[in-house]
């Protein structure tokens, strides 16, 4: 049929409905009249003829309904009708609607908020072209990933591979450097890369040119690229920037190119230079400092590339048994690498919000079931008037869909609040991915989840509300049996809710216990009242190690003399804040051991008084002193575990060790206790401390033990430094306690989120439990009245109903605890210091939920005792 008349017909049937209905009425009446006439002609009495004619028609309403169903535009028609009906219901029962919308909004909102984070971090790919082909390479020893790759090894992988378009490398970190731009010193974050990093990422410079292979060949190449932001702020985005010179530490670099707008790779760098090739140490095959980044050829899979790398590793193991005996290269997809730290937290949070939504759906389904009960007579009447069952079901589903859509809208506001309050505090930005926003995909997700929720909560109540046929509905007996089935369903829902809640509570308890363990772990040093900072002097102002040593010694003297300072010292890397840098160490009278037998310790260079200041115990021998000068005998203080490994059961004082890669030995002058130098969660590491005077460093970390608040001394210390050298730069001032807090911050956020969700889930469950029990008791008011009239003690009644409620709680607990076993195993890598089946956590979660359950049952049970038996009996 042609479209236009069809549309016209549809509109006509909607807008001129009344007229059409009237006409149909008349037509049916005319049919009955004519049929009656005919029957009269056949010999029946008028009354009988009319009766038979009416019967043959079969009921005006029914026929009209059938006509309505078959006419065009009936779908739209019924939808509009359903919506009108829904609106009217909502207006009549605002409380119910509000409750349901509120409950669902929380569930939908939490899920949408989590989804936006999960989407941004886990689902979205890295923002470089063809990102599935990007990989990250890290060194492994005996199969375990141990970190950075050495430069010579990198060259071999780069030159001998068959599966990569490009293989680049970078120094993993962000190095604040003082850069002279147009004769003004600026503090910029420097990144050091190989020439082909941009080629690997598939990115072209915004201005100027990329690095070229030739740049990387010259000794200490002096070209640099700057970030777009630096180009704008320092050079006004003018083309003159290309070719101009900036200098770091006295060395001039020529700017050859500008990175694209918003370019960001793992760190926020402002300037990139080529990896400094003049460093002696880096030319050793076992000096490891690089992160490898590569782009596989198109069509190559990760397994193929890994196989290629393994072949090269095997070759290196053969050729250089001293340095490469158990070494290999592990390739990981770039995306997996970037999210490795947040993946488990995010996944767990997502699981949590899904549970919360399911529990919320349980409540709403229960409410809808109860309401369905109350509306049985209404449904019966509508069925009697000719509504087919799926018409009724469709109307009920439209209602739940409408309400859930409202909840979805409200949920978006809730999601926004969750995000702002909680999720923005997750250290996702550190991963190198833009922070999540509530964008189109989140909105679509919210919409989708609303529909799924509507079906979940609406289907069973809709089915239950329309089961019994019209005649039976109106008889109250049938209503009672319906009620029993409905009540059983609701009880089942409560059991599921309890199970879900106990899962969440156990999860929270495990995490809280982990946090407790983390906070009290013995770090091996004293973090109280400790001010830390970074001090950098210009290398051009202090040419020799002696001069640098002179500066830092006099600075320490001055700072130690300040009021409020107990002691002051410096070190190359502070514990926790600046991890790693492990070097080989061995007894000097033995030959340098091979890679597999080698002992590693964290290498640190300090000025005197370090151990005093930071609270590490000096067990034997002496500290580094002012007499340990650049030209005097090289000395080292070792930690206990290193001594145990190198000189078991011997006194190490006076013995000599070899360190790193050169031949001159170091004399052991002292032994100190262990401390955690890397992450709080790692076991304490072996360490060796050497005089910074003998290193000649120009950048050191300050550690000052104060009597009062550490941060109060920042100003005076800055002034003291300035007086000694106006060009010295003090940065990154922080108290040690705040640094440790920051380490635990993300953990705390996760716990806070899960705790919040658990509380919500528990509350919803308690409400559900209360509802079921209250209904149960209300049904039995008559029985209660009789019992009380016959002399039953209120206490026994209360006990009876509380036990009944607790039976539900008990079943839920059993179900929940059983499912908790496999689930807590999944959480294992988020835990610290406790087992996944930590009894204390399980028991406390159990107890907490039982107490809440008892309270939820007590309230309606106590109300039962307020029943006035005389009144109840009278009402019968």
């Amino acid at each position: 049929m042609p479209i236009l008349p069809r549309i016209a017909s549809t509109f006509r049937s909607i807008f001129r409905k009344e007229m059409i209905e009237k006409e149909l009425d008349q037509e049916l009446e005319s049919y009955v009249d004519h049929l009656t006439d005919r029957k009269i002609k056949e010999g029946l009495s008028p009354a009988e003829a009319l009766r038979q004619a009416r019967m043959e028609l079969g009921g005006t309403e029914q026929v009209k309904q059938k006509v309505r169903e078959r006419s065009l535009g009936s779908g739209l028609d019924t939808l509009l009708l359903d919506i009108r009906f829904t609106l009217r219901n909502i207006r009549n029962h605002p409380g119910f609607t509000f409750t349901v919308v509120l409950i669902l909004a929380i569930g939908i909102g939490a899920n949408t908020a989590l989804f936006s984070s999960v989407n941004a971090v886990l689902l979205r790919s890295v923002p470089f072209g063809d990102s599935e082909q990007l990989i990250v390479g890290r060194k492994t020893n005996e199969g375990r990933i141990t970190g950075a790759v050495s430069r010579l090894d990198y060259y071999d992988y780069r030159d001998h591979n068959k599966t990569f378009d490009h293989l680049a490398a970078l120094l993993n970190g962000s190095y604040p450097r003082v850069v002279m731009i147009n004769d003004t010193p600026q503090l910029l974050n420097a990144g050091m890369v190989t020439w082909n990093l941009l080629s690997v990422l598939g990115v072209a410079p915004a201005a100027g040119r990329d690095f070229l292979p030739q740049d990387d060949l010259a000794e200490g190449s002096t070209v640099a690229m700057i970030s777009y932001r630096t180009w704008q702020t320092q050079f006004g985005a003018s083309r003159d920037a290309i070719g101009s010179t900036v200098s770091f530490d006295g060395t001039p670099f020529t700017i050859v190119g500008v990175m694209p707008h918003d370019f960001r790779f793992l760190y926020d760098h402002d300037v990139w230079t080529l990896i400094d090739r003049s460093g002696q140490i880096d030319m050793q095959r076992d000096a490891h400092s690089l992160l490898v980044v590569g782009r596989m050829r198109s069509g190559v899979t990760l397994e193929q590339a890994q196989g290629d790398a393994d072949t090269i590793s095997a070759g290196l193991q053969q050729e250089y048994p001293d340095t490469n005996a158990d070494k290999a290269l592990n390739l990981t997809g770039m995306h997996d690498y970037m999210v490795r730290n947040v993946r488990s937290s995010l996944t767990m949070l997502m699981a949590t919000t899904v549970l919360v939504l399911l529990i919320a759906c349980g409540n709403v389904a229960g409410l809808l079931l109860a309401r369905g009960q109350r509306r049985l007579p209404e449904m019966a009447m509508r069925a009697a008037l000719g509504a087919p069952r799926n018409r009724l079901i469709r109307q009920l589903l439209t209602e739940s869909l409408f309400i859930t859509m409202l909840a979805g809208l409200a949920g978006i506001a809730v999601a926004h609040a969750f995000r702002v309050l909680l999720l923005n505090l997750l250290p996702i930005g550190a991963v190198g991915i833009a922070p999540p926003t509530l964008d189109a995909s989140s909105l679509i997700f919210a919409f989708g989840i609303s529909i799924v929720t509507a079906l979940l909560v609406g289907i069973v109540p809709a089915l239950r509300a329309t089961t019994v046929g019209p005649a039976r509905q109106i008889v109250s007996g049938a209503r009672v049996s319906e009620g029993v089935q409905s009540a059983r369903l609701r009880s089942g829902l409560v059991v599921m809710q309890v199970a879900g809640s106990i899962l969440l509570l156990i999860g929270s308890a495990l995490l809280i216990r982990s946090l407790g363990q983390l906070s009290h772990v013995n770090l091996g040093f004293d973090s109280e009242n400790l001010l830390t900072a970074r001090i950098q002097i210009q290398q051009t102002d202090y040419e020799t190690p002696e001069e640098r040593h002179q500066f830092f010694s006099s600075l320490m003297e001055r700072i130690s003399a300040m009021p409020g300072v107990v002691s002051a010292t410096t070190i190359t890397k502070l514990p926790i804040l600046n991890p790693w840098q492990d070097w080989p160490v061995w007894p000097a009278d033995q030959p340098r051991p091979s890679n597999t037998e080698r002992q590693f310790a964290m290498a640190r260079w300090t000025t005197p008084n370090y151990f005093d200041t930071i609270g590490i115990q000096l067990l034997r021998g002496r500290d580094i002193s002012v007499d340990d000068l650049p030209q005097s005998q090289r000395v080292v203080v070792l930690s206990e575990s290193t001594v145990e490994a190198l000189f078991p059961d011997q006194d190490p004082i006076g013995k000599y060790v070899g360190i790193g890669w050169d031949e001159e030995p170091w004399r052991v002058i002292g032994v100190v206790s262990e401390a955690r130098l890397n992450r709080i969660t790692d076991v304490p590491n072996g360490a060796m401390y050497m005089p910074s005077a003998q290193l000649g460093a120009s950048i050191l970390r300050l550690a000052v033990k104060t009597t009062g608040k550490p941060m109060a001394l920042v100003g005076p210390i800055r002034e003291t430094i300035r007086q000694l050298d106006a060009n010295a730069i003090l940065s990154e001032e922080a108290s040690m306690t705040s640094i440790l807090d920051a380490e635990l911050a993300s953990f705390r956020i996760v716990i806070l989120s899960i705790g919040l969700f658990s509380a919500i889930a528990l509350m919803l469950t308690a409400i559900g439990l209360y509802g079921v029990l209250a209904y149960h008791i209300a049904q039995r008011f008559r029985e209660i009245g009789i019992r009380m009239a016959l002399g039953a003690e209120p206490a026994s009644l209360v006990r009876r109903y509380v036990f009944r409620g607790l039976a539900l709680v008990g079943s839920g607990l059993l179900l929940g605890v059983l499912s908790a076993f496999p689930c807590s195993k999944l959480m294992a890598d988020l835990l610290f210091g406790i087992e996944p089946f930590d009894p204390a956590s399980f028991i406390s979660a159990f107890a907490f939920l039982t107490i809440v359950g008892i309270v939820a049952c007590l309230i309606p049970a106590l109300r039962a005792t307020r029943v006035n038996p005389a009144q109840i009996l009278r009402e019968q």
Partner: protein
Amino acid sequence: MTKSRSDLLRGTLDMLILKALVLERMHGLGISRRLEQITDGVFQVQPGSLFPALHRLEQEGWIIGTWGESENKRRAKFYELTAAGKRQLGEEKQNWSNVVVAISKVLDATS
């Protein structure tokens, strides 16, 4: 063109109604009586099927209904075929033949 079972039945009724209206205009009861007569009582169309079909055919534009006076001097809505309806009848007849042939083939199949 394949049709579902209820579509097939409905389509058949539509065709029969169109055919019944080829010669003269009739009202609802008249149509059902005519069909009963022609088929010697085999097809007895209930109002529950007749009126939806009539209403739908009118919406599609194949028949058109006008109120008038019946032989009993009562008001009744009389339906008649439109030009489009005549064309549709031809089409439906063709479809029906196809269906009959197909069914015969099935029934005559030897295995």
